[in-house]
Structures are given as structure tokens and as C-alpha cells.
């Protein structure tokens, strides 16, 4: 099977979804690029991360749509088009920019169906590049998915590898509910085997990245690889862990997590977001609430601290959980 980067896997999914279904279109800032420019090279950019590359050339200006810098209008336009039967895939460059378009996501798109008594559908997908690792500081490094998970009505997807990204995005596009799709930008260049053909992965079904007996480790997005590296390193000490990647935080595969905790009796939850009201706290609470009887040690959370993301490379390295921190924490729950 061919290896593809996460960037290419997502790009392939977009090409295939647009070829398959005329109602799918892409909208966002510079998703084509060079519109109005003297070079005439419209479509040459394909998004600042290159994820929408080639879509303009393949599908033209009606289906690969550049916008002014207007995030509220981009999300609103996607939501409105979806409400009348299209399947838009909007790009909001950096997840941090949710700050600008929160109302359209949370109060509009995410609540239509409920407020309208189940009489509407809003099959829009909003894609974001999320997370740290680039010294991009406080306004270009946040995950944001942990915040968005708290809003009923929105589905939240966080792929951790290229294979999952393709299958989850195709599911997101076919899904009839609004989906927020967070692409950890540190993983765009990471490659793995990805089939050429279309396939979908169901929402609410976790992946078991490692299987073991001693500790259950749950990790999201960028942290999945780091947790796997920590677990692999601990094998030498005779420690084995389940590593669960929920892949979607809403819906959340609670059963997978609870079954694993029942078996291991120990839980470490890893995410790169700050800890308060985040995914690590959410899953720790799930275990305390529903698997307390099985726990042999306190549940531990590995997260960023309660602070914005710092610019300086050293500070950012200290901010985002690393393999060492995950290893130490796994050992702690076994002590």
C-alpha cells in the first residue's frame, strides 16, 4: 500500500469526495490562492498548508472558493449552504481563529437541528489546523477541539495519522451533522500507508494503537505518537499498556475506554491542551464516575499547563507534553 502524508491523505479525500458528489465544495482563505493577482496563477497555492492543493484546477472557481479574511462569513456561508442541501468543506486556517467565528459555529450551525425540532440538516464540515510545535505563540498554536467538544450538536474529529485522517474526513463529508475537523499541524508531514480508494471510518469508534495489560493510556491527535513512543520505551521495563486513540471526541467511544480501564485498573490521559475543562479532565471524570470500582491507582492527566502557548522554542518544548513526561506518569500510576 502506498505511503502518504497526512496532508496528501486529506487532499486525496477532498479530491475524491468532490469527484463523487457535486454538492461538495471547498471554501476558505487562499484555498485556491492568487485570485485577482497579476501572475494569473489562480489555484497555485491550495491553502497555506497545501491541503486543498489542486482542487481549483480540478473543480474550478465554483467549487474551490477563495474568500476575503472573514471567518464569521465563511462559517456562516458554509452553514447556510449546508442548510439548503450542499456539503461544504470550509477551511479556517488556524483553529485559534475560532475566536472570530464562534457564534456561527456554536450558536448557529451547532444548534439548528435541535432548535428547529429535528427538521433540519446541516452537513457542513469545518477544517482547522490545530495544535502547537511551531513556535507560533499564543494565537496560532491552540488545539481548541477540547473547547468545541463541550457544545452539543457539533461532532468533533481529531485524526492522529494519515490513514485515519482520510477515512474520518470522508465520513465527515458524508455525515449529515455539522463536523469540526481538527488537523494537528505538526502531523501534516507524517506519513503512513493509506489506500488509494475511498473508505470511511465511523465516528465514536476508538482505535487501539497498542494493546497491553498494565495501564490504559488515552491520547488525542499529536499526542498519540508520543504516547506510543513512551509505551514502546517502557516495554523494556516489562510494562505493557493499552493505547486508545478515540479519534473523535464527540461522539466519544466511552465503552472502549471503560472496558480497557476495567481490565488494567489504571488510566493516564494525554492531551496537548490546557487541563481545565479539557479532554483529559473529561475522560478522568468518566473513569471516576463509571469505573471507580476497577481503579487501582489515581487517574493521571498529562496536559499542557494552565497557560497560553509561549513563543520561545524552549518554553514551548516545556509546555507541550513530551515522551518523557508521559513515561514518568505511566510509571507513577504503577508505583
Amino acid at each position, binding site marked *: 500500500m502506498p505511503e502518504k502524508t497526512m496532508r496528501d491523505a486529506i487532499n486525496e479525500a477532498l479530491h475524491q469526495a468532490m469527484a463523487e458528489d457535486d454538492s461538495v465544495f471547498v471554501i476558505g*482563505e*487562499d484555498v485556491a*490562492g*492568487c*485570485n*485577482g*493577482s*497579476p*501572475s494569473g*496563477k489562480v489555484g*497555485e*497555492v491550495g491553502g*497555506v498548508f497545501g491541503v486543498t492543493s489542486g482542487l481549483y484546477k480540478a473543480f474550478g472557481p465554483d467549487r474551490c472558493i*477563495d*474568500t*476575503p*479574511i*472573514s*471567518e*464569521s*462569513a465563511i462559517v456562516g456561508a458554509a452553514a447556510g449552504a449546508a442548510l439548503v442541501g450542499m456539503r461544504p468543506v470550509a477551511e479556517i486556517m488556524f483553529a*485559534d*481563529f475560532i*475566536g*472570530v467565528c464562534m457564534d456561527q459555529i456554536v450558536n448557529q450551525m451547532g444548534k439548528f437541528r435541535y432548535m428547529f425540532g429535528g427538521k433540519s440538516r446541516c452537513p457542513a464540515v469545518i477544517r482547522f489546523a490545530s495544535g502547537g510545535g*511551531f*513556535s*507560533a*505563540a*499564543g*494565537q*496560532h498554536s491552540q488545539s481548541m477541539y477540547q473547547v468545541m467538544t463541550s457544545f452539543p450538536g457539533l461532532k468533533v474529529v481529531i485524526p492522529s495519522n494519515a490513514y485515519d485522517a482520510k477515512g474520518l474526513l470522508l465520513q465527515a463529508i458524508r455525515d449529515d451533522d455539522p463536523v469540526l475537523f481538527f488537523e494537528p499541524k505538526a502531523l501534516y508531514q507524517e506519513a503512513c500507508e493509506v489506500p488509494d480508494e475511498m473508505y470511511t471510518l465511523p465516528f465514536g469508534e476508538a482505535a487501539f494503537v497498542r494493546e497491553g495489560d498494565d495501564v490504559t493510556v488515552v491520547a488525542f491527535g499529536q499526542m498519540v505518537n508520543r504516547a506510543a513512543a513512551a509505551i514502546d520505551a517502557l516495554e523494556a521495563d516489562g510494562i505493557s499498556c493499552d493505547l486508545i486513540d478515540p479519534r473523535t471526541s464527540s461522539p466519544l467511544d466511552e465503552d472502549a475506554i471503560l472496558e480497557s480501564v476495567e481490565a488494567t485498573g489504571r488510566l493516564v490521559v494525554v492531551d496537548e491542551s490546557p487541563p481545565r475543562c479539557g479532554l483529559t479532565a473529561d475522560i478522568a471524570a468518566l473513569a471516576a464516575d463509571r469505573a471507580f470500582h476497577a481503579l487501582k491507582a489515581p487517574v493521571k492527566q498529562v496536559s499542557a*499547563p*494552565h*497557560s*497560553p502557548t*509561549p*513563543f*520561545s*522554542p*524552549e*518554553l514551548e518544548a*516545556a*509546555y507541550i507534553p513530551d515522551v518523557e513526561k508521559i513515561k514518568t506518569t505511566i510509571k507513577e500510576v504503577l508505583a
Partner: protein
Amino acid sequence: MNLSRDQLLRAYRQMKTIREFEERAHAEIMNGQIAGFTHLYTGQEANAVGVCEHLDHQDTIISTHRGHGHCIAKGADVIGMMKELWGSAEGLCKGKGGSMHVADIEKGILGANGIVAGGPPISVGSALAAKIRKNGRVAVSFSGDGSVNQGTCFEAMNLAVVLKVPAVFVIENNYYSEHTNISYAVGCDDLKARTEGFGFPVFVADGADFFSVYDAAGKAIEHARSGNGPAGVFAETGRFHGHFVGDPQYYRADGELDDLRENSCCLKNFRARVDGGGVVSAEELDAIDAEVMALIDEAVSAARAAARPTAEQVTEDVYIQYGSA
């Protein structure tokens, strides 16, 4: 226009300092010395300086992602800024913010800003405070041709008119927002007229010419300072680098960059304008060039040697005080 000898020398020095700061930052980024996303202001220096030469440290500015020039023009410490780009604990923002968040509140620099059009509403707040306190200060926000399409910018402009506050909106049209041309992203044919539609006067400037910007900004700032409500400056300009360092710039026409550097250089234009006028000599400007180069060298050496931040500092400065004292 009546500019004293000192004012002329100072304006030139400011523009040259910005130019060399940016060109050196570019080189150091290419050498892998500076991390993160950096957007260079080279080519647009006359805009920042032409505006800020009318301000003192009591007036405020708020900048954008392309903020180095505005900050230097408003008096930010160049060495502290270079240290900040290096991510040092001695940087102007202790290495917490980097290029996109350079700020110095004491000097009225309310920050560069990573969110496009994050600044204008904040600037209206600074202007509102000036109005309430009747202290004669003005608040300037810088925007690009792309940033003016953001709802926050529209809201800020309208609110400033409604509240009749001394806010000055400076729009630098460098023709591109990232990879998109203004002719696509601004739907109407006349951005100046659109801006005036909010209900304040907008003064037009040639952003490659310090004297033109100084003149237009003078009128706008005078209008706001005298209690007539907001005003705008609309300057046509060009950036000599890509949107960010490493941008392949597919949007440029053939020869566009050469043409900009050749024909839209504010430093060349300044020299041509003062040459032979008998007020400042070419030798004096050459001497300033040498001093600026030395300052930038000093800044880079200082940044290289400056203390690195430590892990404990990650959680400092999140709050002034968190929990009970």
C-alpha cells in the same frame, strides 16, 4: 510642509532602522536563528514612520502580524525586539510572544497582533478612554487591505463614529492579503470610498513617500485630536518580501519585486527629495546608515548572548495574581 532638520534626520533614521531590522531578521530566519512565523515590513517603512512621527508616547498604536515597523516607529527598543524574536527571556515580552506579539505598553504600543483585525476594536477602546479623560490623546490602529474585510474592523469603524472618539484607522494597501489580491478580496472598486462610508474622512497617501504619508497622517490625526471623531489614512504601498519568510509568491507578476525595490523604495525617495535642498546632506544620511547598521549588529549580538527562558517561566505572567495572595 515644515519639518525641522532634526525631524528629517529622525524620520530617515527610523525608516532605515526598520529596513535593516527586517533585512537582518530575514537573513537570520534563513539561517535558522529565529523560530516561528515572521512577517516582514520591508518596503512599507514610510507608512509607520509617517504616522508615528505625529505621535508621542501618550498616544497609542495597535499593530498587526506585520508589526515590527510600527513598533520601531513608535519607539520600541530595537535590542529588546531583536531579543524577543530570538525567544530570549530578556526580550521585550520575555520570549512569550515573539514576532507577532511585540508590545510595549509604556510606550503606547498596544501590541502587534496575530489575529487579523484583532486590533481596531481595541484601539477604539483606547480612543474612548482618551475621550472620557479629555486628555487629547489619539489611538491609531494599522490595518492591511485584507484586514479591512473582517467584521471586527467594520464594527470598530462604526463604533468609533457612533462614539465620536479620536481613533485613527491607517490602512496600508500593499495589494495582497497572503496570496490574494485586493482586486478580488475587496468587492467594491474604491476602498477609500467604502471606508469613508462609515462617516469619517480618509486622507490618501503614497506609502513609498514619507512626506506624503506624513502629510496625510497629520491631517487625520489633527482631525481626531481636535475632537471631530475618527479619521483614516489610506496609503498605497508594497511589501518587498513574501507574506511570510519562505512564501514562494506565486501571485507576483514577472519583475514585480524588482520594480518595487527600484521604484517604490521610501529610503531612495527620501534621499531624492532632500538631495540638494541644503537642509540635510547625503553624507549625514550615510552616517545614519552606518549607525543603524552598527545598532542592528549590536542587537543581533545581544540577542545571541541573551539569557534563554527556563521551564518555570512557562506559567509566569498568565495572571497578575491567581487565587488568594
